[in-house]
């Protein structure tokens, strides 16, 4: 570490810290972005939230001690999103997505990253359907299932991020999957 107490030393420290932060945090960008897409109403808001998340995380990188960077970032992201919804007022809480069907009105930003040709059609269909159904879940269940199935977090990590006991995570996941399965069955029945 560069010598402390001089302006040059401080600047070096800052650069060193920023570099270490980038190395640790940027590999999780897709995970953070994915959760943001499910928490925020539209892609532009999701991108803003992700950027704000990374800036905040950098500011607090000094106090970061944990071995798991991903849940730490997702917890910050979740705070950013909640703060944004709080700022806008109640009429635009994330839960609105669940009730008013706006998830379907959102522009089709979902894009499957390069599926293999032979399964492309089927997977595209499945993926789009699943995304729509997940997006329609009420917020606590939506975030739990996204963190579990897509972000691949453990129950302990989800509990940390969502700020609830592990038992609650387990029951939310059970509930989320039940709701998802029902919605899925309906969706399958609707498409010939």
């Amino acid at each position: 570490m560069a010598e402390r107490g001089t302006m040059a030393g401080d600047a070096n420290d800052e650069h060193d810290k920023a570099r270490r932060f980038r190395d640790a945090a940027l590999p999780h960008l897709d995970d953070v972005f994915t959760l943001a897409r499910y928490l925020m109403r539209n892609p532009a808001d999701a991108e803003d939230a992700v950027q704000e998340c990374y800036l905040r995380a950098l500011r607090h990188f000094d106090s970061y001690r944990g071995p798991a960077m991903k849940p730490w970032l997702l917890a910050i992201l979740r705070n950013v999103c909640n703060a944004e919804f709080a700022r806008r007022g109640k009429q635009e809480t994330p839960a609105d997505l669940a009730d008013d069907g706006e998830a379907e009105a959102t522009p089709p930003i979902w894009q499957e990253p390069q599926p293999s040709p032979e399964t492309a059609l089927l997977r595209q269909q499945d993926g789009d359907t699943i995304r729509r159904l997940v997006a329609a879940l009420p917020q606590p269940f939506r975030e739990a299932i996204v963190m579990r199935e897509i972000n691949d977090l453990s129950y302990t990590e989800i509990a940390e991020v969502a700020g609830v006991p592990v038992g609650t995570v387990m029951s939310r996941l059970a509930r989320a999957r039940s709701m998802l399965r029902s919605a899925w069955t309906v969706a399958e029945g609707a498409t010939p």
Partner: protein
Amino acid sequence: MNCADTEIMLHALIDGELDAGHARDVEAHVATCPACAEELKAFRAMRATMAEANLKETAPAHLRSRIEAALAVPAARVSAPRQSWFASLRESWKNFFGGFAVGTALSAAVAASLVIAVVRNDQNQQIAGDIVSAHLRSLQAGHLTDVETSDQHTVKPWFNGKLDVAPPVIDLTAQGFTLIGGRLDYINGQPVASIVYRRRKHVINLFVGEPLGAEVHGVKDETVQGFNIRRWREAGLDLWAVSDIDAGELDEFGQKFTAALHTPGPS
């Protein structure tokens, strides 16, 4: 393990979050219960489909460049709202981690074993703790019974007006469990009847009250602080038998109680 427990816990099984003991319990139940086996299969299939659908998004390239550019700015220049935000973040974490520093809380929790012995319901655990406490209290001199008699027809009316429910009071002396009295107690802040039995030198407290906590299907056995608890539901009431006799004998007690309850006695 019953269907209600399994309904929740099979998700933890699918997610690989159960310790060996709980996993064995869930699997044992699933092996004997076609309905739960069907659930398990369906949710496993759903999880596999979701995994195959590759739902993770790729952050757009312009977002990545934007963030990289922002991170290149020395941190001091973007730290204006630091105080308020950090305070709120800390506040929200403090609620769940009891005021640990953020880093410590995360590392402690993550370092905690990856295998979680899952407790289905915190409230049930609290109730089990209350029951053991009430049992221990009752064992102190002079606390065992409010009404001391081996006559069930004296104990039952004694509860009248003290509770919103009429607890079943059954003499099981002939079956090896001597009724010695009754007592009013409190579990989870609610008044319950405690019907006291003796088996050799051991006391059994049978707590009877309106349903508390999560619904019980079948019989649930657990051990808390070395005491065995047998919990079940009968005629819309929750019953907890607690004692230091072994689980097998406590189960025998429960079965004999249930059998006697459904057999019209010579009253």
